């Protein structure tokens, strides 16, 4: 896990469900084929209604049409981020698009587990609604060890909730490495 995560913010609202993160018709691509896998980056967040993509203005795509990677590194969401289906494609597609951290007020639990156990990125919980404080395109810096988020665009700083028990899995890399450390998988 990095000590600092820096990059542009992409801001969305409450209850972003997995169908908005990656619409069901795209779930057919192979995750193990390196080329085909990129399509998950291409269609990440493509199910979100235009007016609600990239707040506060809206109509900003996470990934430009025809591209596989996003210029945004930190997703800022509201309550219940990742609700809906258990599709791990939703967590993976954000990683493939280039997201390194999500900061949300709260998460749906299957999505949260998928992010942590897969080691896809760091899911931080905010201590207040940040998706109304931060605008898409703001330059952010997260101090992972201190648990703070700085908005470099307007110099405001916010505290994040401690990562808690999951830090052991994130530090190990993923749930498999964690299980190996615990002696549950023979090396």
């Amino acid at each position: 896990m990095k000590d600092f995560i820096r990059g542009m913010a992409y801001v969305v609202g409450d209850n972003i469900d997995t169908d908005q993160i990656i619409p069901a018709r795209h779930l057919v691509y192979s995750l193990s084929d390196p080329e085909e896998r990129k399509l998950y980056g291409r269609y990440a967040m493509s199910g979100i209604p235009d007016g609600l993509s990239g707040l506060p203005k809206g109509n900003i795509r996470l990934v430009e049409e025809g591209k596989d990677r996003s210029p945004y590194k930190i997703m800022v969401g509201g309550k219940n981020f990742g609700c809906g289906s258990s599709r791990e494609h939703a967590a993976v597609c954000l990683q493939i698009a280039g997201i390194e951290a999500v900061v949300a007020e709260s998460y749906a639990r299957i999505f949260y587990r998928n992010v942590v156990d897969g080691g896809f990125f760091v899911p931080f919980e905010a201590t207040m609604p940040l998706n109304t404080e931060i605008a898409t395109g703001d330059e952010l810096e997260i101090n992972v060890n201190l648990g703070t988020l700085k908005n470099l665009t307007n110099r405001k700083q916010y505290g994040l909730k401690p990562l808690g028990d999951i830090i052991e899995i994130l530090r190990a890399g993923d749930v498999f490495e964690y299980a190996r450390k615990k002696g549950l998988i023979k090396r």
Partner: protein
Amino acid sequence: MGAMTLTEKILARHAGRAHVGPGENIWVNVDVLMTHDVCGPGTISIFKKQFGERAKVWDREKVVVIPDHYIFTQDTHAHRNVDILREFVREQELPYFYDVGTERYKGVCHIALPEEGHTRPGEVLFGTDSHTCTAGAFGEFATGIGNTDAALIMGIGKLWVKVPPTMKFVFEGSLPPYLMAKDLILWIIGDIGVDGATYKAIEFAGDGVYSLSMEERMTLCNMVIEAGGKNGVVAPDQVTEEFVRSKTRRPFEPVHNDPDAKYDSVKVYRSQDLEPVVAKPHSPDNRALVREVAGTALDRAYIGSCTGGKLTDFRASARILKGRQVKIDTFIVPATTEVMKGLSTETVDGENLLSIFQKAGARISEGASCAACLGGPADTFGRLNRSEVCISTTSRNFPGRMGSRTAQVYLASPYTVAASAVTGRITDPREFIG
């Protein structure tokens, strides 16, 4: 040792512990791992990467593979996913595979699992689908997971879980004739919100719940995930045990709540006080009484899915559709092949359900699957491809869930959906049922 809820007791037993409490992280032994065509291929590739190309699953009797999502489509990627499942099942010699195009094909996994005897009281079931919580109706711990967690289970037969606190919802008194389990769960979600049960177990109790059939109990547990819940559960009774024994010879040990178990919250409803409800677009917690939105113009009605495509759901719809005509496109999608057969054998006043639906002018799916509940490939039966307004017996109505991002979906009980299909507008089923 403190008293435990049903969920806590099942988890303790599977962790080899005398006692567990909410918030504890424990490793549990898994009784059944279920996967399907959408998440199976990803799970298999992670399993091979982590445990080796020639690795074997921890227990072939405990892995159940049910293709159900993208079956009746021309999409070649979707077919490739089913091929990957076939190859893996062959290589691992898995006995429980319900393959497409064979006599064994079932359809929607959550309905297929109990039909084939894979849901048993007191057990721990994980599945790569959020609606795996449906199986809690059988008095077991059941929840949805992603590919990574499923691959870990395939390798070691264990998974870590945080023990959830339990919220208890009690329904006093049997349901009035115009209400269904779908109304009860939409009522709860409307009260607590789409994140009201996040990280928590929901237990359904009271004589209102125990008077329900297994299929109706499944509807309750199925939508627990729509409130963010980890698992839903109904304590097993005679109805549960008789159902399970009719499906499997495997032994099982029912688990019950300790009399002084501690709950996170307890809420009591009087069934008689409740009314038919819908969840308006675009969230399952956007509840309204049917009479408050009655008259809303509709383009389509949809009856199907793990939530609302069981025989009970079609029997209820047929009671209203018998001798009447639908005014809007009405799609009938049986969840499984067994439900599909039931349409020809089950009758309402002497007429079989299939005939009732055909005469009413409904469109009946040729195959059992998840179909348009989650949109799927563009050629999926019943998919909303434009800005249609649809009333549906399914579980989710977030933007784009059934296809187009501009479509609007109202969630409701089979009674309400059927009544609305007849008039072409949202209609209170009490207009048809006393």
